[in-house]
Structures are given as C-alpha cells and as structure tokens.
C-alpha cells in the first residue's frame, strides 16, 4: 500500500501497526516493513504523540517507562494498554460509510511461513497441590513463599 501510494505521489508520516499478531505471534512485521521502507522504527510502545516532525513514543522497558523520539516518517508498533478502545461516534460512522475502500493486489513473491503443521499441546493431567482452604491456609502459603525465597 505504501509503495502504491508513493507511486501516486502520496506520502506518509507515520505508520502504525500492532506489536505482534495474537494468532501467529511472529513479532516482526513492523520491523521488516520499516527496513523495507528505510525508515526508523520504534517497537512495542503504548502511546505515541506527533509534533514538529517528530514522533514521541512511550513504552515499558526493563528499567522503567522508556521514551523514544524519532524523526518522521517513521514506523511505530503498539501494544495494548496505552489507549482505551472506544466506539466511533455517530458522525464518525456516517463519514466512514462514504469512505472509498481501496482494493490493491499484493506485490512481491511470498516465501511462505514455513509452517509444517499445527498441533495441540498434550493435555497435562492436573498435578495441583492444594495448600488449604480459606484464610487458614495462610501459614502454609507463607511457608511456601519463604521456601521459594520470595517472602522474607
């Protein structure tokens, strides 16, 4: 789509994608797209703001909330959680009805996903150890936490 638009002289500032697909879980589409386009990419963020030709993105890192500031055009992939999903407004839905849907055939030569087959993980019989019932189980729980080195 980006290349087809570029051929018509239509440009972009920001391309937003999800961080990963809930089904195939490949974690790489946004990065490969950015590489293809030769643009910077910020991955796995929760919020994005655009001002003055720069996209500022925030996401959870190992040591805290990380900030990225990348020049546009850029690719950003997002995780759930930064923006509350909401239903579109009535006026938005009315506008959407008139929006023309572009149909494009993909170009390129897909190499396939390499999938051989899908299997279900073997069902594991329950091996749960019940530590107790109700608040009386607290002592057994804390003893376990201490054995695991979790509670001092």
């Amino acid at each position, binding site marked *: 789509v980006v290349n087809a638009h570029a051929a018509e002289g239509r440009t972009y500032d920001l391309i937003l994608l999800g961080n*990963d697909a*809930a*089904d*195939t*879980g*490949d*974690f*790489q589409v946004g*990065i*490969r797209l*950015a*590489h*293809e386009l030769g*643009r*910077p*990419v910020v*991955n796995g963020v929760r919020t994005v703001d655009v001002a003055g030709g720069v996209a500022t993105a925030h996401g*959870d*890192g*190992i*040591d*805290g*909330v*990380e*900030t*990225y500031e*990348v*020049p546009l055009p*850029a690719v950003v992939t997002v*995780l*759930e*959680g*930064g923006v*509350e999903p909401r239903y579109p407004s009535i006026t938005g839905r009315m506008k959407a009805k008139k929006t023309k849907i572009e149909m494009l055939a993909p170009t390129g030569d897909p190499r396939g996903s*390499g*999938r*051989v*087959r*899908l*299997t*279900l*993980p073997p069902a*594991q019989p*329950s091996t*749960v*150890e*019940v*530590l*107790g019932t*109700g*608040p009386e*189980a*607290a*002592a057994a*729980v804390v003893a376990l*936490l201490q054995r*695991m080195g*979790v*509670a*001092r």
Partner: protein
Amino acid sequence: MILVFVETGATGATEVSLECATFARVLADRTDGPVHAVVVGGERPDVLVGELGRYGVAAVHHVTGDAFSAYGGGTWATAVATVREAIDADFVLAPGTPRGMEVLAHLGARLDVPMAANVVAVTDSGSNETGPLVVTRQVLGGAVLEEMKLSERPVLLTVAGHAVEARHAPDPAPPAALRELTAEVADIDLVARVTATEPVEADRSGALTSSPVVVGAGRGAGGPDGFDGVVELAELLDAALGVSRVVTSLGWRPHHEQIGQTGSRISPDLYIPCGISGAIQHWAGCASSKTILAINTDENAPMVTKATYAVIGDMAEVVPAINAEIRRRRS
C-alpha cells in the same frame, strides 16, 4: 557455530538468557557447536565470563561504544550482526523477551531470513548440518504449537520463556573467553534509541513483563475497591501487579496492567492469580510462568487445575490473611 544474545540484569545474565544458553547447548549437540554469547552495552561483563562458561558458552563477545550507551532495537541488532558475521554463526538465538524478539526481528530483516518466535523445541535437526531445521514454537499465545521449517541459514529463533530449565553444562567448563569489540551503527538505527527512562518504582505495573514475581487479580476482586489486598501482597513480595481482561473492561484497574493474549505476556518464576478463573485468553498470557499459586473459590477452575499450588477460598479473605502472616513472621 551458535550465537546467543544475552540480556543482563543487576546480578548477571537474566534467567531467560541462561535458559536460552541451555537451549543453545542442546541445539549444539544436534547440529554444530560451539556456543558463543553476545552482550551489548554496559560495563565490562567479567561476572558473565564465569557464569556463562558454566552454561557451556565458549566465548562472550562484548560490544561497546558511544552508540551502545542507550538501547535501540536496530542498534543492538547491529552489535549482534557484527559478532555473527565475525564468527560466521549459523544459528542466532535470543530469549523470547520483548528485546530478544525486537533485536532478532531487526537481524532477520537485514539478513532477509525468517525468524521463528517463541520456539520451545528443535523437532528435527535434519541429517546434515546445512539442511532444513524443523522447530516447534508457540502460536495463539501458547494454546497451539506450530512446527516450522527453517530452510535458510543463518537460522534465527527466540526461545520461549521456560521452554527449558537453565542447567549447567555436564562437564565443568572453563570460563568463557571475553572479547571486547565495537561496531558502526547506521543513523537510521541511532535515531531510534531510548532517549529517557523513567523508573516506575511507585507503580510497579511497568515491571509486569520482567518481574520474577507477579500477583494477579480477576473478577473475584468484586469491584474497584477489591484490590487493596493484592496491592499490599505485591508490595510485600516486591512483585508486579497484573489483572485479567474483565477487570480492565469493567474499568476497575488501568488497561496497562492486563495480562493475557491481548495484554502483557508474563513468564515470572512465580505467578499468584487471585480470583482469576483462567480462561484461555488469560492463560495465553501467563502459561510460561514457572510456578503458579492460584487462589480461587472454585476448585475446578482451569487456573486451579493447571496450577502448581492452590488455595481454595475467597481472595478477599485469603489474601489479607497471607499479608498478615507475612507481616507477623517479619516482626
């Protein structure tokens, strides 16, 4: 030759990195060793040399320089790519963490080869060293396994959290050799580095995916005021707090605390889900937990039957009792 991307924490290599090194060793037995490791940025990793040696790593390559003072996926991938090329590695492995995924995806894009995410096993290493490799990996958040054929070299794969247990090499190995080097990073990668990091000590939700202990809460909390007990438990255990989707959908807790297929995916050493039934969407986000201690009123709830340990009871009664017991033992 196998190269492992190692992430470090305050005390050395992260647990998932050691699991990844163990996975690499198993792969080395079936394909062609030895195993090398790459560490990017930070201080000279002397402590890692002995530690990774015990896990069968022959050499640690430490990439430093001004470009590596702040994290960026493309920048870190440049470091890994430089080492991979220098040692001509046929396999590059990374932990199945957000960074591990990101770095290897950049590498895959550069080398124009596939990357297999969240691999749990090598299913078929073929009859010769350069032939196709079939790996098994998690899809649909771990609810389904996919066998994936990787025909090209180098093979890039991330190892799902707790796919294997981190184990020392059977024969005590000498400390790994340490090699210091630097790498040239392209501008396009330099601009996509972290510019600031704000610690999240007060609100530990940011540590959800990296915390070794996570306390979870679900519908059993009963309402927006039902979280005091789990918040206190998380504080007492220095744990992160996560919640199920129903909790965020009802507006009881912020969205960024959600664990599940469409929220954060966690792989802590210990997960304590309280009042969470364990629907498949939630399970997808926590299936990689090493140990699960479920607190639930329903002994037949999926979370309870899949857990390692369980307490049958109302979280509103059980969790405060646990908190009181922890405080009592401390005093």
